[in-house]
């Protein structure tokens, strides 16, 4: 795993004419898992998009080293393609370095099925397989447990644990509980203006 760190300083986020949070400072280095909690609409997803560099912050700065991967509600897999081909596209873009986690995530039987026929939970697992194959050191997971069944939830938690043990960083935005000892919690309610 490459050396990685991510640091946000005095972030503020504005959506429309509302400031969602401000004064948020957050740092994570290799082996850290940070769980961002907060009610709906408090800016969890926006925070992850700011950290990913996809959304400019209203104020504050983000500094990071190491490649970054994001899983959100959009799996970025072609709906018309069979799952195997849709994942192969990203494998080729990423240079095919990372591990193939399709079997681990229970997707081995679904590789021939077009992505549009997959359920919400299956698409979520497919997006996680894309993330693992990307071999990114920093994981940004936006509601990673949404739509997953009882068997898949501990599997995702153990994947994050393994990623942490390998020296990666995981930032998880979720209003659900994420049962991983040693993680840090950030409650966005504390940063409400």
């Amino acid at each position, binding site marked *: 795993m490459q050396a990685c760190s991510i640091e946000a300083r005095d972030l503020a986020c504005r959506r429309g004419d509302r400031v969602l949070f401000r004064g948020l400072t957050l740092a994570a280095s290799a082996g850290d898992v940070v769980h961002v909690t907060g009610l709906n609409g408090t800016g969890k997803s926006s925070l992850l998009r700011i950290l*990913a*560099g*996809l*959304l400019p912050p209203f104020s504050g700065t983000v500094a990071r080293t190491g*490649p*970054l*991967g*994001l899983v*959100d509600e*959009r*799996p*970025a*897999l*072609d*709906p*018309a393609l069979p799952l195997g081909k849709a994942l192969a*596209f*990203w494998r*080729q*873009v*990423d*240079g095919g370095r990372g591990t193939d986690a399709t079997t681990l995530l229970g997707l081995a039987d679904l590789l021939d099925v077009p992505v549009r026929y997959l359920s919400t939970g299956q698409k979520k697992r497919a997006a996680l397989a894309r993330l693992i194959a*990307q071999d*990114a050191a920093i994981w940004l997971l936006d509601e990673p447990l949404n739509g997953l069944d009882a068997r898949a939830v501990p599997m995702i938690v153990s994947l994050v644990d393994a990623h942490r043990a390998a020296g990666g960083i995981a930032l998880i935005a979720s209003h659900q509980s994420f049962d991983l000892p040693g993680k840090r919690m950030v409650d966005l309610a504390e940063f409400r203006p």
Partner: protein
Amino acid sequence: MSALWTVLRRDLERFAPGGMRGGGALPVLFFLAVAMLFPFAVGPDPTLLARTGGGVIWIAALLAAILPLDRLIEPDIEMGFFDQWALRGIAEESVIAVRMLAHWLSFGPPLMLAALPSAALLGLDGDTLRTLEWGLLAGTPGLAAIGVTVAALTSGLKGGAALAGLLVLPLAVPLLIFGAGALAGGGTSALVLTAAVSLVLVALTPFAGGAAVRAARG
């Protein structure tokens, strides 16, 4: 660089005739249909058809270029492709440049082929056909560039598809004037001007389209 090859291959699979479960062939079929219907509308007078046929083919090419606009950019923004490319350090400008190339390859050369039977239907002579083909070669990259820019600008807007079609038409006026003007006696200089307009549009599109995609992200 190899990542961009992969992106180009995906684009070609989606846009080329035969891609998108047949949807990729629609612009060419539309083009042929317009060329076939025109003689029914104006009557079978051969001199009239030969005189106006080249212009009709240009109008048909313009309309055919508008057909795939709603599928060019917006689905990839909605499905999160542009976000994932950005995270991997693949600039929006590069993706837009690749998309423009794929869009042109999927409708430009097929239209130039389809112009052959269309020219026969309209009774165009050999010289006119030659000028027409050179004009299409010079002008269709410009049409592809306008299409990609407008598709990027209107992605995320309500009724974006209809608006995109409406916006392309006035922007295509210079191409149409010089491209069709070459048929009306403009000759080589009109063809060169068509190519010049195309080159300017092709050079601007990656930057305009890339900025539009970033603005649509919000």
